[in-house]
């Protein structure tokens, strides 16, 4: 078996006295879409932030491309190819679309050839090219999600962490986001997706982990979890 691109073991995290992650283990294989599903407060965002280095875990180990990155500062993680598209998108509102995208390539590893990368992002999201001089804060939620994703791609990530990319989007945009995820996987990107929209996430995921109260309650191929009676009852309303 090949070593996974990302491997998390025994991850624990707390906010003050409140522990929110309890010995979380999971792996992400190269070229796959892996999804973390679970209710609000299950710990999805905390896991994503721990991976990006925005939350310091109290225990456990994060290995990325064979290297222990648990103590590595967040900007060095981006530089080594681990890129978070944060929940709520967090575009730079007072900057233009193009400035946002260029900032995505601020990591030293992404600087060379960032103009070409910009062209690639514009090709993937023509809407961003049309609006390149528009202020990011004035765009719709769906456009901002596209921008956040494009900004992430500018860093040339080996692994894209997407935290709730469909949160607060109109149904037509939700569909488009999921289509984009499939396109990115087909283009060779590896994606870890935290998602409340369990049904769609499970349908497209190669592998899925169900989180409950900060623990992995169930894991397996996406299709398997989709068929599980427990998942169907609790998360799919069937």
């Amino acid at each position, binding site marked *: 078996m090949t070593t996974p691109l990302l491997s998390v073991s025994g991850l624990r995290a707390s906010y003050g006295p409140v522990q929110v992650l309890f010995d979380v283990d999971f792996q992400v294989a190269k070229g796959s879409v892996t999804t973390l599903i679970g209710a609000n407060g299950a710990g999805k965002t905390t896991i994503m932030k721990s991976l990006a280095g925005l939350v310091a875990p109290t225990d456990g180990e994060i290995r990325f491309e064979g290297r222990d990155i648990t103590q590595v*500062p967040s900007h060095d993680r981006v530089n080594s190819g681990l*890129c978070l598209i944060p929940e709520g998108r967090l575009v*730079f509102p007072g900057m233009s679309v193009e400035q946002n995208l260029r*900032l995505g390539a601020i990591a030293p590893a992404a600087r060379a050839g960032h103009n070409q990368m910009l062209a690639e992002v514009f090709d993937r999201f023509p809407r961003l090219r049309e609006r390149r001089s528009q202020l990011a804060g004035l765009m719709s939620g769906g456009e901002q999600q596209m921008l956040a994703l494009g900004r992430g791609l500018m860093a040339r990530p080996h692994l894209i962490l997407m935290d709730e990319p469909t949160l607060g989007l109109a149904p037509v945009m939700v569909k488009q986001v999921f289509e984009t995820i499939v396109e990115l996987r087909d283009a060779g990107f590896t994606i870890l997706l935290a998602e409340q929209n369990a049904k769609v996430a499970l349908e497209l995921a190669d592998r899925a982990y169900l989180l409950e109260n900060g623990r992995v309650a169930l894991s397996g191929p996406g299709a398997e979890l989709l068929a599980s009676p427990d998942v169907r009852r609790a998360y799919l309303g069937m």
Partner: protein
Amino acid sequence: MKNIGLILGVALAVVAAAVPAFGTPYMMGVVFQVAMWIALAQSWSMLSATTGYLSLGHAVFYGVGAYVCVLLTGTIPFEWALLAGAVAAAVFAAIVGLPVLRVRGPYFVILTYGLSELVRHVVMRIESALGSFGRMIFDVPRTEVLMWWMVGLAVLATLGAYAIRHSRFGAGLAAIREDEVAAETVGVPVTRLKLFAFIASAIIPGAVGGLALLRTSYFEPAQAFDPVISFTIVTMALVGGTETVRGPILGALGFALLSELLWSSLPQLYMIVLGLTLIIFILFVPRGLSGLFGRLGRAG
């Protein structure tokens, strides 16, 4: 339009060069003052305009520079004393930077103010424990020499602010101002960049403090760390506009000249007019003189 800050800086240097030819000591004093405020406001903008971390304590760097300079003058040439003042301010910023920059928004504003006041009182205590109630300096350089040094610092600060804004470093600082968490997710080394900006904004004020000391030839802690210095820097930068390099120049120029006019004609109205100006600008001209001129330029 992009280079107008530089153009103004050079123009100021030329004006200053012309002044001694026909100028009186009074005129040289005015140029000294204007250049001093440009240097201070421009340095302040390296941190506060770029990152949005508004420092209300920049007098502390000015004071540290003045204090180090007064301790050293007489023992070494004044040029080296000024350099030592700048280095001391930078070292001080490097030491206090990390804890201070952990807080944001109004907390940062209050903390920088408090820090400046703390240092002021500590220095006052040290001086009174030493039995010193102000130190006189003898043998100071001529006004013309001091003016030249100050103009040099103003130009240097302007070039520095320009270079920062147009660099990758400046792009990272702008990302921090827009959204610090997002900046971190795109790979901006947030803590490091904030610290660098903090140090960069302290260096020139350290030297300015030393020069101002030589000009008055008298050191007194309450005066060297006077919080009004901090307030004035912020006021000038806001009135000038924080979005461009020319902003702090316009603000410092406008304010320093206005204060000269008011001092001579309507001294009792001086502070009232300055206060009103600040209120009017905050309410009606949020982008400052720079934004105002930019708009007029486009309309015309």
